[in-house]
């Protein structure tokens, strides 16, 4: 059994690595199909369409842009393996330094938002399934159809308006109260760092500032979980063991939450990885709306500065994050449902 599981993990890991390689190849070839000439590429790297010929030639030489395409690709891949995402054309520092600053912040935001979203989705999905074709079911459907059809920024605006400006419950923008001194950077994620330093004031402030954007990420994504959760709950509620539970005289609540819910959870695991991809994309907008300084902020800045190396670095990083999330979801699925390991 153990060897079976190890085989499964190995196979999935190899798959993930291949997909990552293809992702890099895709980004590279898209770039070179869209920008075929070395001169145009040098202009993009410079972020300046009116650069003089001398500077452009220097850039071409420096980046080996005249080399055959496979050598450029080789250099690119080797560079990425060394953590070289290029030099930021605007700040003139390695992209890796910026990513190290911003990535933990976004990961913290997206993961917390994701957990919230899955919880809301599971809860609403179970309620909808238990009341199939009655008012709560239609209510939930109306709710999630609305939230997944609303533009992401609108969700952010409405939440700011209601919870921050109208009810005055939470701060609307920024990551933390700017008057506080930050704890020493260990992981880069503000919540974890302040916990490690025992700085409760900072932790509390960071948490307050995190709730709204994380909740916004949960709101834009939970509908997916609701929908699949409902379908899978309905499936589970029709099973014989649920009927048996009813016949034993258990209350409806006990059957729904105790028996059916646990079995209906399994398909949700795969969904979480897909939802993660969606949330990473949504986080760009959410961070912009909430002035939350993570990868989204970094990307939006890069867009304004025509900083293409930064945008591509973000693209590759989020692709890798999504592939890893898929890998983890595969493993969790195999743990939860041993039948999967056989395939």
């Amino acid at each position, binding site marked *: 059994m153990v060897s079976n599981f190890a085989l499964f993990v190995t196979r999935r890991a190899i798959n993930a690595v*291949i*997909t*990552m390689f*293809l*992702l890099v*190849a*895709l980004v590279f070839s*898209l770039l070179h199909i*869209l*920008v075929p000439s070395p001169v145009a590429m040098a202009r*993009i790297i410079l972020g300046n369409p009116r650069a003089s010929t001398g500077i452009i030639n220097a850039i071409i030489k420096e980046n080996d842009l005249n080399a055959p395409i496979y050598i450029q690709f080789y250099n690119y891949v080797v560079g990425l393996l060394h953590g070289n995402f290029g030099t930021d054309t605007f700040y003139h520092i390695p992209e890796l330094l910026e990513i190290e600053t911003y990535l933990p912040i976004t990961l913290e935001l997206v993961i917390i938002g994701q957990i919230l979203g899955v919880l809301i989705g599971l809860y609403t999905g179970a309620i909808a399934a238990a009341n199939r074709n009655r008012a709560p079911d239609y209510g939930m459907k109306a709710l999630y*159809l*609305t939230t*997944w*059809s*609303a*533009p*992401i*920024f*609108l969700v952010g*605006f409405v939440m*700011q*308006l209601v919870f921050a*400006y109208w009810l005055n419950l939470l701060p*609307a923008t920024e990551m933390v109260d700017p008057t506080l001194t930050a704890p020493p950077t260990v992981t880069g994620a503000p919540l974890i760092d302040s916990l490690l330093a025992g700085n409760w004031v900072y932790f509390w402030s960071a948490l307050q500032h995190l709730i709204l954007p994380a909740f916004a990420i949960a709101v*834009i*994504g939970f509908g*997916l979980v609701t*929908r*699949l959760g409902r*379908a899978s709950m309905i499936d589970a509620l029709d099973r014989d063991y649920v009927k048996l539970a009813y016949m034993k005289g258990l209350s409806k609540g006990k059957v729904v939450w105790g028996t059916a819910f646990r079995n209906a959870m399994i*398909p949700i695991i*795969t*969904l979480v990885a*897909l*939802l993660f*991809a*969606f949330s*990473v*994309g*949504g986080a*760009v*907008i959410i961070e*912009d*709306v909430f002035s939350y300084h993570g990868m989204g902020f970094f*990307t*939006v800045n*890069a*867009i*304004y500065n*025509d900083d*293409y190396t930064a*945008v*591509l670095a*973000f*693209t590759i990083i*989020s*692709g890798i994050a*999504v592939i890893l999330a*898929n890998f983890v979801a595969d493993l969790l699925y195999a743990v939860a449902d041993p039948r999967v390991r056989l395939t």
Partner: protein
Amino acid sequence: MGLSSIFDHLTRKPIRSTGKVSLGTVASTAESKEVKKGASFYLEYIRKDKPALAGMVIIGAFMVFAVFEAIMQELASVLGRPDLGWMFLPTNPLALYFNLKLEPPSLTNFPANLMGTNFQGQSILSRVLYATPHDATASVVVVGSAILIGMFLGSAAGYFGGWVDEIMMRLTDAFLALPPLVLAIAVAVVIGGGFTSLLYALMIIWWPTYARFFRAQALTLRNKPYVEAAKLSGSSSFGILVKHIIPNSVDPIIAYATLDMGTVILTYAALAFLGIGISSGYPEWGAESSQGLQFFPLQWWYSIMPGAVIAVVVIAFTLVGDRLQDLIGGRTNY
């Protein structure tokens, strides 16, 4: 690709284009005549559900107005009379009226102030209406091109199998590993600004999902007796693909494509919100919302109103698409 589309990936059972539904019941007879019958059948089915009917009406109004407005704007530029472009709008969406700036939504000056005015005193309603052609174009062109590209690549991959299939599927894997918004940003930034290049960017990234669909369809269809019969009677592979595989794969795509048109509008709005692909002097729904950010929350209507319009249009697409999904998934009785 948004949430709804991800969901369809997960829950799509082997698609039953030949289920209880009376369109092309015997797949071999599903030719153009049958497809036409299918269209009216779909409309009839939508009409039975009130929310879906409302969605259909909104989509109809949106599309008709967008075409009309596009013709007016085209006329305006051809005839050199820019005022034709806003002849049927409440006010001129491009002129500046600083004395009217940042007025809240009200019934005064009806209907210009219905959504309030922006920083330059322009009616937000006029600007939103003026921008409709872009969003309608984006949704139709991007989904249409994705269907076309996905249709040929996906059906070919599924039908031929082997290394063609392997290459296609690994390629779509790489595309689908990225959040679509992120990929769209990357491609759009590299291509450069402007509406047309934004359309290209969306077209480049949008087809893999459809390729997957058509591949799955082709895999189930390629062993059908009528395909074998066509093979035996000496039809070329291309002929079989175009005449038999593709026509029989299209039906289930309709529901997905309807949902997807809403997703395109959302992605387009998000890109415009980030300042990608907008040109100065032409309003965009997402860009309007983003300009309002600096007047938020005091002048809340500036950013909320354009966003709300996007939400209404996308909800309309979702309602119709969801209804069609029920039909194709066979989840309701009819």
